[in-house]
């Protein structure tokens, strides 16, 4: 089932960037992986400057990994991507509550 996963990630550091842009990363994957694991691997192995909420309860409980994945709001910890697939990851909200890249301020409206 091995193959390459292509990930387009929304990048924007308001302190240095003029405007947001997308950066593309390629990962070799043996099996399907959650979007959060993918981001973690990118940050670990390819680009240490990537920012996102990397906490994971894995149970839709903490809500910290809510992002737009392929243009829909989803939990990154439970959204699976298969080898061979491409995926676009953007912050859950922008420009409201945006901090950097995929990190946004926690919502107080629960």
């Amino acid at each position, binding site marked *: 089932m091995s193959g390459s996963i292509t990930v387009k990630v929304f990048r924007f550091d308001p302190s240095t960037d003029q405007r947001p842009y997308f950066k593309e990363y390629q990962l070799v994957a043996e099996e*399907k992986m959650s979007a*959060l694991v993918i981001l973690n691997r990118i940050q670990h192995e390819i680009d240490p400057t990537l920012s996102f909420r*990397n906490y994971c309860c894995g149970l839709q*409980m903490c809500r910290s990994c809510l992002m737009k994945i392929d243009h829909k709001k989803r939990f990154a910890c439970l959204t699976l991507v298969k080898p061979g697939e491409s995926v676009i990851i953007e912050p859950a909200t922008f420009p409201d509550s945006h901090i950097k890249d995929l990190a946004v301020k926690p919502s107080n409206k*629960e």
Partner: protein
Amino acid sequence: MVTGGCFLNDQRLVWYMASQAEGAIEKIREFDVSITRIRDISVCVPPGELLTKLRKLIIQSPGIELLEDTLVTGLIKTNGNISGVTALDLTTGAFFVIQAKAVVLATGGLVGELYPRTSNNPFGINTDSSGTGHAMAYLAGAELIDMEMIQFVPIPANPSCLNLRYFPDFWEGPYINRHGEIVESNVGSYQGKSYSHLFVQKLYRELEKGNGPLFIDQRNLKKPSAGPKIRSWHQRRRLISKLGIDPHENKIEITIGSHFGMGGIRVNEKTETTIPGLFAAGEVMGGLHGGLRMAGYSFTQMIVFGFKAGKQAAQYALEKHFLEVPDPEVDVEKKRVFGFLLSKDDQVFARDLKRQLQQIMQHDVFVIRDRNGLEEAKRGILSIKSRIPALIVPDFKSFNLEWARAIEFSLMIEAAHVIVESALAREESRGFHFRSDFPGQDNQRWLRHTVIKRHKNQLALDLSPVELYKMNPEVQA
């Protein structure tokens, strides 16, 4: 709890928890959290709902300021008393001091990040169980007890199967080896069931004999009834079916991973540590479980001692004045924290040191230990510790994950050092601390806690007798 914990428990904490458990559940009910009774003596409290409602309550309460995305980097003392903490705002990279009359450490566990495989994390992402609270207390001079006591449990070998961990019936087995031979079919015969040290040691030995991988094979068993209607359980069952890992249709490979630290910061029933003004509650506190934590008792620990610590700290703060925070200490900590951002000739990433540390812990501070291995581990840990000044992170301030990781690792290595020294000191086998060079439980010499504190910038070890407050092994035998 006390026989399960092999009499190493602080029995005063045990009795306090037992006396307060029902009241704590009632208090949670007041937060409007749905509580379901599942057996005579147990209830299910949905943790997500509890956390969300508690957070809402805090946000809505006047007089409480909630700081999120804030990493506390160290505790500050003034004349031996707590006077505040140093902290980093992760969103901006601003370093600041929170002056405080009292501080409650509720930082959770320490073993999730110390081992390559752990039950703490469903998908291999940071668990925050890294012992930073333990290490900050230790560096401030608090006592840590029985830090060698680390619970290991069987966990699914494939990370996506870790969702199965939440179903008690899954762990009943049967457990089989790669030849299809039954390793254990009666987990219920062990005190603590699949959380038992004796059972986990049996699995470990089977793997050592080369009979792995091990599996749980429930394909021929009748599916258990759906049980009580609990939303989170229902969601997990759906997820398990979506992931294609139903244990009644698949043989599930298992391995052994870290689960819980029974040791921690020494506290009394009032959650007071050995530093005035510092309180600790939850997994970061030590001594409650002794040598083995029974299933379900850490939630009770969290709520009973959480309520208690809040009350005690509030009472303490009412009676005390703010203490002046010493500037030189703050400056030293600020220099340390910002030092990670500076470029260096000799440089190393936190992730590489962490990988090395995890290998050491897995190899020599795991289910079965001995002096040679522990000495080797200690040398390795000290060598990693000497590399901390070489840690580098990319130079930007906002939401810098590598920076947070470097700060965390610099504390985690201290916790690992305390664990290995405690494990070297305990020359017997009790609960989850098994020494192949001292395979027996020795109640004559070792009904004692290992106690570690920092004294004159050095690690100092002491032993203190276990107080047999209500139960005595002689009588129980």
